[in-house]
């Protein structure tokens, strides 16, 4: 595989950050999504596994450049977070006591997630760029005569 395959791994890393971004955006956008009988939007989370570990199990063979672990989003799960109850008797989704169940989205941790996603994406992009430029310079070897 050599260094060319590493570009795919960095791309997979960017895909993972993109999936995290979509989930975080969905959580923030649905922070006030309510439903009948307290059936509110449940905050989502991504599960990221390495493709090699999935295929070979925990006791895999020795890692070489040919089987470096590639991250993949295996599933998007609903987090079991208790809804926040807000008193709003005029709301169509309010229960008998006038309480409305809002999703348990924590705005602070959502914003922190956005920062960490941004850093993760940048790091993968930088790694991709370094690999690409090293490959480019290697291909230019012996070019100037």
């Amino acid at each position, binding site marked *: 595989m050599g260094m060319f395959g590493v570009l795919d791994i960095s791309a997979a890393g960017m895909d*993972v950050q993109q999936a995290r971004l979509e989930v975080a955006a969905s959580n923030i956008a649905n922070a006030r999504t309510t439903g009948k009988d307290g059936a509110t939007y449940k905050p989502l989370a991504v599960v990221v*596994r*390495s493709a090699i570990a999935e295929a070979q199990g925990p006791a895999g063979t020795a890692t070489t450049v040919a089987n*470096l*672990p590639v*991250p993949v989003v295996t599933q998007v799960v609903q987090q079991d977070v208790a809804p926040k109850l807000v008193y709003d008797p005029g709301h169509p989704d309010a229960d008998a006591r006038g309480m409305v169940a809002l999703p348990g989205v924590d705005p602070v941790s959502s914003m922190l997630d956005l920062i960490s996603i941004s850093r993760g994406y940048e790091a993968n992009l930088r*790694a991709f760029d370094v690999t690409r430029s090293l490959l480019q310079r290697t291909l230019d070897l012996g070019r100037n005569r």
Partner: protein
Amino acid sequence: MLNTDPVLALLSRALDAAALRQSVHATNVANVDTDGYRRLEVIYSAEQQRLSAGAPAMDANEALAWAQAEPEVVESADTRVKLDQEMAQMAENAVRYQALLGAIERTLGLLRTAARDGRE
């Protein structure tokens, strides 16, 4: 050609090792959010460490014999990936890689000069 000149062979082995390091750093960065991921690193075998400790001065052929052992990819002692450290090590390794490329370039230049009887 690359296998007949010991200096070029040595440089290309070192270049392979630097390329492997770049691959491993990029993999660590890509897996920063992977559940249960343990940071990978490149190490040299115990045999190589013994040789490098015991032999202060090596000529190119000795060094080449030393470089024949394959570097290994193993799980690191500190299992968490730290993005800043990973990026710093990647930058350092990239500089080393480019230095090696420069050395190969100049060695090829010498051979080219020799092949042209010293004429430019």
